[in-house]
């Protein structure tokens, strides 16, 4: 099967992207230097093509309630024009996906899903009785991230970006083209995600690059989200990890009406979790990597889900599932790196927080 390409594929090639397969898509890994792209987002502005992400639309009378039944968070608690991070859970309380729901009105909710899960999510929703439309091909999606994102974007849109608060969005124009601008992101920095028509994506991409944004690939996206301790589906969360285990209890609203996975979560909450996701740093040299074993007293007790040499902090950082008894800040264990037990210590998350 051939790989899918976003509307920006040619623009990536022109920009010198190193292209790799990701979730069935041919996407930029970097444009020469992951580390420089990472720094651009922390200090200025970076631009990501995330058009591979999917958009599934709930529309019509009862749209909000239909969506709310399939997510763990509560759309009734936010206003129109607000976005909500949530889990879509299975009956065991594990993650089918983690998503952002955009509440346009009680009759229109757009759910942005991970590229790898797009088909699975759609089928899951349909199987659970929802009337949904996969609108993924109607949209391109750019993420403009970094402390200079607002200043860089403002000249190109009539929307008052200074009034647009975190996790709010507005239907407006960018560069004279229809767009939805949301103050959301996956980097731990201020920034925006911009939905536009596929045919407008390239002009918008070039406009933002000419304005000073640096093109950034999936490599920097991953190191940025890890410093910000944001979960990645397939690493930290999956069908057999629950929000409570992943430290995402805040996306579960047990006091709302029934939703898929609620009963399992109520039970787990009452019982307590046996393992928890923690952030750690190494106390000796090395880089933790996904899949490395966590040891305690010489025995394997957990697993690293993500790890890297933090480009911003210049220290090795990682996320791991460990027994609850080892999850408190300051707890120590070892990470097995090439048959060597390297001491590690649990630290407060996120690793990096913007000032």
């Amino acid at each position, binding site marked *: 099967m051939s790989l899918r390409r976003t509307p920006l594929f040619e623009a990536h090639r022109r920009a010198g992207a190193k292209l790799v397969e990701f979730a069935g898509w041919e996407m930029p890994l970097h444009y020469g230097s992951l580390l420089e792209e990472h720094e651009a987002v922390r200090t200025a502005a970076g631009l990501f093509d995330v058009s591979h992400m999917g958009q599934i639309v709930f529309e019509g009378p009862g749209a909000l309630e239909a969506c709310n039944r399939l997510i763990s968070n509560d759309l009734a608690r936010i206003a129109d024009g607000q976005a909500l991070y949530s889990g879509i859970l299975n009956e065991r309380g594990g993650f089918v996906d983690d998503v952002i729901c955009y509440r346009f009105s009680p009759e229109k909710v757009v759910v942005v899903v991970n590229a790898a899960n797009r088909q699975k999510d759609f089928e899951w929703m349909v199987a659970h009785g929802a009337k949904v439309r996969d609108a993924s091909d109607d949209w391109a999606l750019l993420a403009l991230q970094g402390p200079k994102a607002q200043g860089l974007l403002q000249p190109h849109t009539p929307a008052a970006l200074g009034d647009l608060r975190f996790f709010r969005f507005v239907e407006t124009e960018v560069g004279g083209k229809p767009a939805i601008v949301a103050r959301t992101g996956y980097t731990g920095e201020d920034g925006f995600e911009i939905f536009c028509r596929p045919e407008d994506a390239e002009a918008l991409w070039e406009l933002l690059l000419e304005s000073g944004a640096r093109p950034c690939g999936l490599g920097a996206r991953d190191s940025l989200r890890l410093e910000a301790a944001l979960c990645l589906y397939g690493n930290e969360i999956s069908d057999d990890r629950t929000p409570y285990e992943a430290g995402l209890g805040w996306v579960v609203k047990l006091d709302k009406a029934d939703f898929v996975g609620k009963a399992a979560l109520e039970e787990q909450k009452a019982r307590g979790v046996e393992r928890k996701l923690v952030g750690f740093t190494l106390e000796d040299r090395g*880089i933790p*990597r996904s899949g490395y074993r966590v040891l305690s007293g010489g025995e394997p007790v957990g697993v690293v889900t993500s790890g890297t040499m933090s480009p911003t902090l210049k220290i090795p950082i990682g996320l791991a599932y460990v027994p609850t008894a080892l999850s408190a800040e300051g707890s120590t264990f070892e990470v097995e790196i090439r048959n060597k037990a390297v001491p590690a210590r649990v630290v407060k998350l996120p690793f990096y927080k913007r000032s």
Partner: protein
Amino acid sequence: MAQNVPQDLKYSLDHEWLRPEGDEVVVGITAFAQDQLGEVVYVELPEVGTELRAGEPFGVVESTKAVSELFAPVSGEVVARNDELVDAPEKVNQDPYGAAWMIRVKPSNPSEIDALLDPAAYQQLIENQ
């Protein structure tokens, strides 16, 4: 992609280079290797005094995207290592044949050096990859 292959070095199939200096050899990784790896963020080298066996791992280089073992091009004792790479692993990308030398070895079987690739053969190897 054209890569720099200095004419005064010998090369291994695993993309290490070796420079004979008196009765010792200096070892590093090639420009081709660092390009394939991407940005190097971590280097782990053996202690001075370690006995290496040709073809066996002697250290590790990690880039932002991958972990790669280093393989000894010859057998012998490590007589020096480049500790500067611990704090400045990016030198592996910037100057793979110079500042990013990795270890100095006293070969126990100098005939192993002759079995390594000459620059022309190494050039051919990387052009076929």
